[in-house]
C-alpha cells in the first residue's frame, strides 16, 4: 500500500492533467459532435464564453462575492462557537453529557429543513443564509473538534501534568495547540459542506449569489449559465483547498504532514 502511494511531485501533476484531459475530451466528444443537444449540455467553449460574458456584463462577480461572503460569515461564526464548545465537549465528560444529545439531535436534521422556518424568522436576507449555514456547520464542527481533543495523546497530557501544568494550562498549553492542525483541517472540510447549504438556501430564496444565478438561469432556460456557475464553484473549491494546503504548511510546520 505504502509503495503504491509513492509518486513524485512532477509525476503527480502529469497524472492530474491527464485525468482532467480525459474528462474534457469526453465532454468535447459528446458536445462538438452534436451527439447531445447544446440545450442539455453546452460545449466547453460555450461555457467558457458564458463565464466571460457573465463576468464582464453580468452579475457573476457580485454573485461570487455574495456566496463567498455568506460562507465565510457562516463558517467563521460556527468556528467561534464550535471551537470552545468542541474543546469543552472533549475535555469534560459532564459537559458532554449535558450538551451532546442536543448537538447530535440538531446534527441529524438536514439544514435545508430549517429553511422555511428561517425565512419566516429572518426573511430572505443575509441573516437567513447565515443561520442555515450556522445550523449546518456548527454542530458538525463541534463534534469533529471534540473528537480531535479526545484523541490528544495521553502521554502528552501526563508529561504536562508532571511538569506542573494546572487544568487550565493543560487546555491552553497542550490540548489547544495540539488540536489546532485538526481544527484547521475540519474548517476546510466544513467550507466544502457550507457550499451545499449556501447554494440550497440561495436557490430557495435569494436575490444574489451563485445559487440565485443558477435558478434564474433555469427560469430563462440558460443551461450554459448554469454550467458556468457550476464550473466557477468547482474552481473556487479548488482554490480553497489550495489555500488550506499552503496555510497548513505555514501555520503548522511542526506536523509530520507538513514538509517544512
Amino acid at each position, binding site marked *: 500500500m505504502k509503495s503504491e502511494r509513492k509518486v513524485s511531485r512532477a509525476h503527480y501533476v502529469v497524472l492530474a492533467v491527464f485525468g482532467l484531459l480525459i474528462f474534457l475530451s469526453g465532454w468535447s466528444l459528446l458536445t462538438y459532435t452534436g451527439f447531445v443537444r447544446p440545450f442539455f449540455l453546452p460545449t466547453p467553449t460555450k461555457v467558457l464564453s458564458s463565464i466571460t460574458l457573465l463576468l464582464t456584463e453580468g452579475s457573476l462577480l457580485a454573485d461570487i462575492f455574495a456566496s463567498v461572503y455568506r460562507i465565510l460569515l457562516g463558517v467563521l461564526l460556527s468556528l467561534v462557537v464550535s471551537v470552545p464548545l468542541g474543546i469543552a465537549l472533549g475535555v469534560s465528560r459532564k459537559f458532554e453529557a449535558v450538551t451532546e444529545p442536543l448537538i447530535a439531535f440538531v446534527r441529524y436534521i438536514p439544514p435545508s429543513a430549517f429553511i422555511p422556518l428561517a425565512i419566516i424568522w429572518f426573511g430572505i436576507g443575509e441573516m437567513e443564509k447565515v443561520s442555515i449555514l450556522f445550523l449546518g456547520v456548527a454542530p458538525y464542527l463541534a463534534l469533529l473538534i471534540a473528537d480531535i481533543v479526545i484523541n490528544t*495523546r495521553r*502521554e502528552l497530557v*501526563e*508529561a504536562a501534568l508532571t*511538569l*506542573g*501544568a494546572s487544568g487550565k494550562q493543560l487546555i491552553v498549553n*497542550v490540548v489547544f495547540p495540539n488540536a489546532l492542525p485538526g481544527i484547521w483541517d475540519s474548517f476546510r472540510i466544513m467550507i466544502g459542506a457550507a457550499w451545499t447549504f449556501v447554494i440550497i438556501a440561495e436557490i430557495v430564496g435569494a436575490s444574489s449569489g451563485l445559487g440565485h444565478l443558477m435558478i434564474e438561469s433555469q427560469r430563462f432556460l440558460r443551461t450554459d449559465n448554469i454550467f458556468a456557475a457550476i464550473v466557477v464553484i468547482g474552481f473556487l473549491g479548488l482554490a480553497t483547498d489550495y489555500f488550506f494546503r499552503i496555510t497548513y504548511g505555514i501555520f503548522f510546520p511542526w506536523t509530520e504532514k507538513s514538509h517544512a
Partner: protein
Amino acid sequence: MAFSFLGLKNRMLELHHVSKTYTHKHHHVEAIKNLNVSVREHEFIALVGPSGCGKTTLLKMIAGLIPVSGGEIILDGRKIMTPGRDRGLVFQQFTLFPWLSVRENISFGLEVHKVDKKKKNEIVSHYLGVTGLKDFAEFYPKNLSGGMQQRVAIARTLANNPKILLMDEPFGSLDSQTRSHLQEFLTRLWEAEHTTILFVTHDVGEALFLADTVYVLSGQPMGIKSVFNVPFPRPRVHALKHTKDFFDLENTIARELEGSSFAVD
C-alpha cells in the same frame, strides 16, 4: 520482603505498604502488593523487573498520575496525592510537545510556573549545553532522532528542578548503540548534578551501569525480591561493561530475575 532504610535522616522518597489492585467485572487483580522502598537524597536507584510486572504503574503512582489502592507514598515528609513538578517523569515513549521547538520544550515547566524571563533563559541554555543540544535549540521534535528526543525530554524534566527524577525505561525504544550513548550521558549528568533518580528498566546491564542500588522485582503481584549494592566506582565509563566483575554481577542478577518472572499462561 520489605527493605527500607529507616533511621537515615536524608531519605527523600518512601513507599509504605503500597499496593495496586485492578477491578474488572468483580474480578480483582493484584498488580502490586505491599511494596516498601526508600530512596535517599542524591541516590541513583534502579528497579529491574520482567516486562509487564507493573513497573510503569509504580512510577505513575509516584508521579501522582494514578492513585494507590493501599499504603502511601511520601515525598519529603508529605503524602503524594496529585502530580507535581517536584517529581519529574521521563517516559519510554517520545513525549515532547511536537508544536514546540527544543528550546520551548525545555522551558515548558518554567513557562507554566511563570519563572521570570532572565532566569528561564539561563536555565534553558544551561540544559541546552549540558545535553549538547545548543545547535538544535530551534528544531522541532519531528526533526530530531530518537536519542536526541530523549535527551530533550530529560533536559525538560531537569529544567524544572525536581526533587526526584523518575525514569520509565527512557532508553527502551532506542537502538542499542544510541542506548549505550545515552547511558553514558546520564551517568555523566548524574555525576555532575547528583539528582535523585529512580530508574526503571528490564535491562540488567543498564541498571548496573547506572545505579548505586539495584532492586530486583518479582512479578504478579509485584514485590521486591532482592537488593544489590553496586560496588563499581565512579566516574563510570562504557568499558566497565566488559569487566569480569560487572559480568559476574550481571549474571547473578539476571539469574535472580529469571526466577522471578511469573508463569506465563
